[in-house]
């Protein structure tokens, strides 16, 4: 694995090859492995080791990037030359800032709310193919016990990544991550669970297999319900896969480019008063790098407070542009929040470590309590193939999948055929009737999040499929 001293040596070599005004190195080394199974059989099983050297150069208002995975001196010289060739021919961008200095990083970090993070666990890094296979065997055992078949994966990875710039900013982060996902299948039904953690001992594959099996068995022979507006109980994975689609709009660049659904809506009561959301990379249930693509420390940002959008995230340049824009007095606090992507890029910045606040003490409801308090509704395990239908109303479409149930008189009545939904996230987050305690959840459409289960009224299902 890459170590910090090696990375520093590579940066020194790159500097010797460079004629640019400024130079930045983003470097990463990783080892990842994934054991995949289906039909109760490990059918794909892989491991990868790789490096990543990404160099940005600047000449005044011109900047460009080149990337390689080769460490030899000739390759390092070529990657610098490639970046310089791309940068030199550009026109000047008056808004391109010089790279940050350590003083700027430190001063800005004072407002970050930073806390130490420990996200490297040797027991995750040390997992061998035999360990993963043994865990898969236990999950397959659960499937066989219930005469089901299962599919899924168990992965583990470790990554070391750092940033160095020619104005002496440096930072370094090491992390591990373990992931387990399982789908249990029967002839007419399926059930699913997924979880991730930097610490593999936080995952319980057998318990997940058991829950997925219970869902599969309980949703056998699904009945068809007519589409329409229903009260839904969304498990945390379903919530995160839907709401993840709106947070790409919580950036200064999105507002400046008028592509955000928050255009002209910041400071208004957009969501229900029970919705408060932070971006907080330092949260104990979060994972990820605590600095951004220029080396600025990530801030804790309260994005939504009691249903009102209070703030968005910024990179250094978008904060500067916002300060000088016509809407500067309409968008809340403007400061680089350490959420910029590596430059140059087309997105700008976005919150990547979302944490929903739970309800007031004693008001949180478990999924079981939400079901018990529902006269008629739908329990949704997960949502799938979600896409944006309308960018300003933040209307999404997608399907339910792997465990969709009719709830009547406080009890699960059985499985139903999957629905297609067309629902506005604004509307959905205005109609949250109950929430659970936020948990670290994982899905397939959005980044992992700390999010609660939600009970939502008038959720708009528009069609039914055939299973």
């Amino acid at each position, binding site marked *: 694995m890459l170590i910090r001293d090696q990375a520093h040596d590579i940066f020194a070599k790159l500097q010797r090859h460079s004629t640019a005004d400024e130079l930045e190195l983003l470097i990463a080394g990783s080892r990842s492995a994934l054991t995949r199974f289906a039909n109760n059989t490990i059918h794909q099983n892989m491991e990868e080791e790789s490096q990543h050297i990404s160099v940005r150069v600047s000449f005044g208002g011109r900047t460009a990037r080149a990337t*390689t995975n080769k460490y030899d001196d000739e390759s390092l010289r070529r990657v610098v030359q490639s970046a310089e060739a791309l940068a030199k021919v550009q026109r000047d961008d008056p808004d391109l800032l010089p790279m940050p200095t350590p003083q700027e990083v430190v001063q800005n970090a004072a407002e970050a709310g930073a806390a130490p993070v420990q996200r490297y666990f040797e027991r995750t890094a040390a997992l061998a193919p035999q360990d993963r296979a043994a865990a*898969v065997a236990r999950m397959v055992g659960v499937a066989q016990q219930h005469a089901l078949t299962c599919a899924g994966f168990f992965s583990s990875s470790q990554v070391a990544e750092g940033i160095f710039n020619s104005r002496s900013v440096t930072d370094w982060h090491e992390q591990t991550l373990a992931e387990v*996902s399982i789908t249990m299948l029967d002839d007419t039904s399926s059930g699913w669970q997924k979880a991730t953690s930097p610490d593999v001992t936080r995952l319980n594959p057998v318990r997940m297999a058991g829950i997925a099996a219970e869902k599969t068995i309980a949703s056998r022979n699904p009945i068809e319900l007519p589409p329409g507006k229903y009260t839904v109980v969304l498990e945390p994975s379903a919530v995160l896969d839907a709401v993840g689609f709106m947070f790409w709009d919580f950036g200064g660049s999105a507002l400046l480019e008028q592509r955000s659904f928050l255009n002209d809506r910041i400071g208004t009561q957009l969501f229900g008063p029970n919705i408060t959301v932070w971006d907080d990379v330092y949260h104990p249930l979060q994972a990820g790098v605590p600095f951004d693509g220029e080396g600025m420390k990530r801030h804790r940002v309260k994005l939504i407070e009691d249903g009102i959008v209070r703030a968005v995230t910024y990179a250094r340049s978008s904060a500067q542009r916002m300060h000088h824009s016509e809407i500067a007095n309409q968008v809340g606090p403007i400061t680089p929040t350490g959420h910029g992507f590596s430059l140059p890029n087309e997105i700008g910045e976005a919150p990547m470590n979302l944490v929903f606040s739970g309800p007031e003490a004693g008001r949180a409801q478990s999924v079981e309590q939400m079901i018990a308090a529902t006269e008629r509704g739908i329990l949704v395990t997960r949502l799938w193939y979600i896409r944006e239908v309308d960018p300003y109303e933040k209307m999404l479409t997608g399907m339910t999948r792997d465990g969709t149930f009719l709830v009547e008189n406080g009890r699960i009545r059985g499985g139903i055929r999957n629905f297609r939904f067309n629902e506005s996230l604004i509307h959905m987050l205005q109609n949250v009737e109950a929430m659970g305690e936020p948990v670290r959840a994982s899905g397939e459409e959005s980044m992992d999040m700390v999010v609660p289960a939600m009970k939502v009224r008038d959720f*708009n299902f528009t069609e039914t499929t055939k299973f």
Partner: protein
Amino acid sequence: MKEIALWALETAKLRGASLAEARIVDERHRALATKNGRIGSAADSESLGIGIRVIAGGAFGFAATDDLSRDGVQGCTARAVDIAKASAAVQAQELRMVAEPPAKAEWVSPCKIDPFSISIEKNLELLFAVDEELRRNKGVTLAETSMNFRRYEQWFVSTEGADIHQTVVSSGVGYAAHSYQGTEIQKRSYPTSFGGQYQTRGYELIEELKLLEHAPEIADQAVALHAADQCPEGTFDIILDSSQLGLQIHESIGHPIELDRVLGMEANFAGTSFLTLDKLRTLKYGSEIVNVVADATEAHGPGLGTFAYDDEGVAAQSTPIISNGLFTGYLSSRDTAPAIGAPRSGGCLRAESWNRLPIVRMTNISILPGDNPLTLEELIASTELGVLMETNRSWSIDDKRYNFQFGCEIGWEIVAGKRRRMLKNPSYSGITTEFWNSMDAICSRDEWTLWGIPNCGKGQPQQTMGTGHGAAPARFRDVSVGTAYKGSE
């Protein structure tokens, strides 16, 4: 490079593998983009490494590294064998592979103008010219352009004796005008959305698309959409332009015919398929005029699914998928072909790069054009009442590929054979086989385009793959229109 790959084969044999394949990939990519007169992306990247797939103990193992030293390759191979032996501990199903005669070949995709030979200045000049032209319309609030080039060179050797060296050059370009006004954000794209058109061609693709000439109309339409009427909800005949039909093929034919999905291998992520094995040569997938092929051969055209050999050394083929409406074929690989009794793989096993295990992927999944001359304007003229929809805006389909919903950037009402008012937010939905059985007309070869989708996601860890889709505008009868906005008031 071949010598390095052979180190892997030697090590694999010594460690007891019954089959080993080594792929070395050397790839180069350039990404340029602009946004409202600024650089959005200016990036070059290169990546070189080796991926080694083995069978040991009757199971697969795969390992990849970018350390191409002898120690690095041998260590990586040893890990692949170790992984395969771990896989062997959980094998409820026997691994079977159909035979494939080992090929020895050299192939380079046709490319008239090497895109990396074109100066960066020239590329940026074109993108900025388009950007400025789009923003000449003051209603355009965001102009985005992008251009991408890729050179992908691969050496493949196997213990069975395969020795294949192929190089593919691909190019892509496109742009979009966004307009925010009131409570709406509208968008128009050219030549299609989400990055534009991609093919396995050189810079000649960029020159042929006449990017600048189309920019004023695209900008005007993006702004005009605000004043257009909402697409009505109901049952209508629809005509899809060829790019939207290409995506419709991708989602509702291309994915369900992947044999690994059918066999449950993707059940945890991408999903399964309604096309269970009993439906082969029995299911009426579409109407009589629906003819679809999976064609990776050079003769089909420069699609993103065009190659000489797939990533387990099987030659490119043309497979009839739907023949006069009848479902006739799957996309297969050496380990999935036995399930349908096929004597040979369909040649569809592809990997994103050196560091990914190859999996069953689409090649060029294309609908054949109509035999009789028919232009889009003639098709409109023969339509009494309907909606013409152009350029994809959103797409979604369930995990067995039955129920789909698509939104398009712009629609046009057709009344009595004439294109009338512009419609905003058009969408349509349906069930795959019902939809394809409702197709009653397709335009002829002159209207047929081989579209490229550069970013098809599948697999765990997820892999991105380029796929090709030839399509001509086509008409579908009695389709559910406008459901995306149903109940949104």
